[in-house]
């Protein structure tokens, strides 16, 4: 079962964050290869596991880095807004230990600069999340 475990000093204060890479979807890559087009280098990002998020969100600038085009539109509700339309993109999330999940992500502005991605319940739906507070670790298995 592919999995990774991350230790986060001050896990309670910082939250369950992990360094990931964001890559274009496998179908997108196939099409680009077939047309002899460049494959964008995956973007480094700090992600937070967010059980309060229905779906996975990436910061909008990552879309440009990866030269992605939208494949859909969705509505989102946040603590301060309702029914905001956002674009969706096909993407692969590369976690540590070669754990890879392909999903459709939402692009939206994220506060501050330190978190570029929220891993939502669309990804958690496929796995097991173990949050061990007293050792300041969490494990995600698929």
């Amino acid at each position, binding site marked *: 079962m592919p999995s990774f475990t991350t230790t986060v000093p001050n896990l309670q204060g910082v939250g369950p964050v992990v360094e990931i890479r964001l890559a274009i979807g496998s179908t997108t890559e196939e099409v680009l290869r077939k047309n002899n087009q460049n494959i964008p280098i995956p973007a480094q990002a700090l992600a937070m596991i967010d059980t309060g998020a229905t779906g996975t969100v990436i910061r909008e600038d990552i879309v440009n880095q990866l*030269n992605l085009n939208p494949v859909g539109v969705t509505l*989102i*509700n*946040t603590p*301060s807004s309702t029914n905001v339309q956002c*674009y969706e993109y096909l993407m692969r999330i590369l976690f540590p230990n070669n754990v890879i999940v392909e999903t459709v992500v939402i692009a*939206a502005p994220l506060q501050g600069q330190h978190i570029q991605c929220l891993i939502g319940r669309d990804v958690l739906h496929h796995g097991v999340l173990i949050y061990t507070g007293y050792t300041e670790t969490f494990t995600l298995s698929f």
Partner: protein
Amino acid sequence: MGELLTKELQTFNTHKSELIGKANGKFALVKDDQIVDIFDTKFDAIRQGYEHFGNVPFLVKKIVEIDIPQNFTSNLLRV
């Protein structure tokens, strides 16, 4: 949100009633003013979209009466 997929959303909304009648719960692949095809899963529709059109914007949309918004409790989202 920008102008991308505006035309595709208009196309989807124009055909929404007939789509609900024949394919409720499935996924429509839409490009410009055309409903290209209907698929059982979102990923099948996306794959077909890339294979047909390449790395360009296209719309894959679930055929439902009312769109349910995705919810985010985090205040990290700046919308």
